[in-house]
């Protein structure tokens, strides 16, 4: 590289009356003219205006400037503007430095002389720094125009459909035998009470039929490597023991199988077979054999399913299959799991048969559920009195301190359904009624009008000890009505615990695989709570649905569409530009101590055993500087924030 003597142009902005007169801009400009390497120094009313920028462009062209300093507002405001001007004039945009003399000087300093002195120091520092700037380059790397979606609840399905619609290849990975997630278990959904199956099933079918959606059910992602635009993903397809090509989905195997296992999909309220499809509308409708319960696998005898399968689809010899795919972006949509209320023994779940979780109730209420949608107790009778207990496991510092957001609404949905289907008396115990959302408050009002007893108070205990002989066989719900300041003891036939939401099992492993963070409660962290709710700190990885935090279906779908949109917007250009301001490790200085390898939060530094030095992966590095600060031999440095540049600033400022 030929050394080019720096020729700096310094421009002091008046910013109308925002900088001048507090800062004596002419004095600063005169001062700047005397600094090392400064070829020209000017002041102007509005540097960011077109004529202001033209000064810079013309000076670069006519006076042969190769560095520019603008002293004006915050670089967070106009750095891009002036960098563009430099580029336009033919010099590297990185040959530019800004002095923030408005936000950090004229607006915060009372005395004019002090403000002027501070501005002079800032300009001197900027000029000293810019002399050492280097022209940086970043690379365009080609991206894979395909997307991996992990989890096929409504979030994963929606994201897949949106991305597939835009023409992208989507790999949708679901660990259960069928796609659908929690929503597939519901009968009615708040606030409109439309039928979940009616709106969900078409989407499931569409996802299965779309040519560019590759469905991997009964599968798990086992590793993700690489970086934005090029993730290498390995998927493990668990053996179904049923050939998907041959199976016609006739269901005979499920009729013939002699083994009964409590159905996960029905929350243990009904049985499935050892060869099973979780529910009638399952997609795909090819069953799987549950090895742990299959008599043939356990004892070596039976094969009833095989005998009766006309399509000869049963294949006991299947084994794990690994599929390697390359994708440009990943959408995590692993959803949630419902809180297990067993530890709250005071509520009697698992002790009293008529205490249900909300998910169990969803199945009880579902037309395809164990009671064909009739709300019945275990003895086959409809309940006469039902209690619904809000916030079980939520807003409780012993369990989950946060609000699970959907429980108030689904509890009211239950209240409505119980009233409608059985006419039973309904008692709802809530802490605070939370119904924010379009048509939600209206739904609350409607439920109030339906004659539901709404009690503001946390339930203390649910017991089978009754207060009056005529209540024998009932459960007594003990709670304080905090509005009436009275302790209530309500005998009921059935109790529904509105359990909270917690991160899906295994989401810690997924987060580690994807290199994304989880918050204190275990939900995946978005990049910014308000402005980047579906991005993560790892570029190319996006979030959809409840895996980011509890939310209802409308919000889940909106977020899923957004995640697909972000992924598509990232990949649509076909390339991604790597960051320019990233780490560089000088191989001549590196002593091979590997401290930086451990320091890097992005695993962007690897160790080259051959050369004995650490090497930065440009595509992964985010430029945080953890390596630079830790490097004992100063071999690591961040471009544009290197030692020389910061030292120059320090010298000028002190």
């Amino acid at each position: 590289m030929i050394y080019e003597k720096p020729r700096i142009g310094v421009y002091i902005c008046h910013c109308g009356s925002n900088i001048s007169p507090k800062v004596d801009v002419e004095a600063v400009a005169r001062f700047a003219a005397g600094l090392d390497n400064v070829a020209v120094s000017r002041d102007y009313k509005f540097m960011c205006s077109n004529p202001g920028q033209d000064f810079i462009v013309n000076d670069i062209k006519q006076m042969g400037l190769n560095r520019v300093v603008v002293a004006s507002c915050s670089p967070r405001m106009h750095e891009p503007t002036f960098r563009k001007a430099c580029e336009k004039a033919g010099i590297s945009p990185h040959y530019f430095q800004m002095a923030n003399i408005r936000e950090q000087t004229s607006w915060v300093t009372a005395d004019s002389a002090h403000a002027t002195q501070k501005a002079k120091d800032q300009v001197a520092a900027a000029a000293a720094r810019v002399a050492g700037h280097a022209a940086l380059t970043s690379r365009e790397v080609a991206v894979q125009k395909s997307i991996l979606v992990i989890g096929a609840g409504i979030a994963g399905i929606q994201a897949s459909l949106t991305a597939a619609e835009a023409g992208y290849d989507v790999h949708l990975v679901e660990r259960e035998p069928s796609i659908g997630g929690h929503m597939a278990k519901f009968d009615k959904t708040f606030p409109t009470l439309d039928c979940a199956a009616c709106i969900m099933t078409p989407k499931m079918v569409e996802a299965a039929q779309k040519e560019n959606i590759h469905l991997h059910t009964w599968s798990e992602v086992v590793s993700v490597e690489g970086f934005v635009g090029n993730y290498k993903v390995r998927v493990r397809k668990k053996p179904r023991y049923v050939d998907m090509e041959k199976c016609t989905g006739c269901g005979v195997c499920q009729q013939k199988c002699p083994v009964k296992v409590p159905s996960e999909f029905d929350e243990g309220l009904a049985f499935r077979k050892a060869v099973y499809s979780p529910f009638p509308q399952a997609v795909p409708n090819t069953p799987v054999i549950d090895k742990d319960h299959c008599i043939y696998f356990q004892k070596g005898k039976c094969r009833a399913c095989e005998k009766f399968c006309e399509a000869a689809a049963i294949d006991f010899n299947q084994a794990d299959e690994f599929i390697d795919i390359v994708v440009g972006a990943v959408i995590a949509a692993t959803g949630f799991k419902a809180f297990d209320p067993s530890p709250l023994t005071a509520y009697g779940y698992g002790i009293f048969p008529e205490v249900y979780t909300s998910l169990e109730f969803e199945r009880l209420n579902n037309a395809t559920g164990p009671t064909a949608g009739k709300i019945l107790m275990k003895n086959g009778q409809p309940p006469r009195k039902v209690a619904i207990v809000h916030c079980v496991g939520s807003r409780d510092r012993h369990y989950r301190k946060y609000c699970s957001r959907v429980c108030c609404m689904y509890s009211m949905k239950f209240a409505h359904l119980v009233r409608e289907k059985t006419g039973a008396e309904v008692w709802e115990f809530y802490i605070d009624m939370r119904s924010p959302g379009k048509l939600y408050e209206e739904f609350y009002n409607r439920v109030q009008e339906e004659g539901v007893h709404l009690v503001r108070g946390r339930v203390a205990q649910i017991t089978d000890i009754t207060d009056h002989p005529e209540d024998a066989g009932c459960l007594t719900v003990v709670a304080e009505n905090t509005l009436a300041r009275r302790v209530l003891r309500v005998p009921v036939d059935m109790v529904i615990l509105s359990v909270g939401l917690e991160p899906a099992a295994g989401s810690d492993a997924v987060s580690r695989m994807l290199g994304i963070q989880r918050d204190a409660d275990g939900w995946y962290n978005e990049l910014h709570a308000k402005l980047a709710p579906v991005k993560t700190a790892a570029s190319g990885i996006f979030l959809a649905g409840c895996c980011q935090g509890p939310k209802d279906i409308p919000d889940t779908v909106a977020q899923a569409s957004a995640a697909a949109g972000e992924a598509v917007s990232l990949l649509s250009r076909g390339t991604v530009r790597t960051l320019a301001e990233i780490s560089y490790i000088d191989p001549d200085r590196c002593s091979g101590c590997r401290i930086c390898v451990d320091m890097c939060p992005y695993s962007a530094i690897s160790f080259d055993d051959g050369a004995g030095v650490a090497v930065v992966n440009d595509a992964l590095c985010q430029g945080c500087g953890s390596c630079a600060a830790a490097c004992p031999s100063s071999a690591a440095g961040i471009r544009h924030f290197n030692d020389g540049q910061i030292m120059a600033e320090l010298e000028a400022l002190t």
Partner: protein
Amino acid sequence: MSAFEPKIIAMVCNWCTYTAADLAGTSRLMYPHNVRIIRLMCTGMLDAKYVLKAFLEGADGVFIGGCHPGDCHYINGNLKAARRIPGIAAILEQFGFSSERLELKWIGASEGPEFQEHITRFVETIRALGPSQAATAMIL
């Protein structure tokens, strides 16, 4: 004789404290003029030698501002800085300087008033400590 006016160097994170300083400006919150701000991308890139250099060059106090724990844009650079500070402070003490001259604070992007408050207080602390002799006394 005029009162001692300390020279303060503030090295702050682009994502939080630098933004808070901008916000203090937009909100016209006045604070002592003695502070000179250097923008880092993250406190995680704060090298011990920057702090020592500042003192050697004549700074009377060095203020570091980073994101609150858990909020670091780069996951945990702020915590790395927090771990580094006691080591640097120990060096200062070895040379006979109060480690109060070096301070690390978490100031979030929306905390303009906190920035004003911390800087004002820090300047007072340093003013009370008097001029630093580090530039002449620290022989490295």
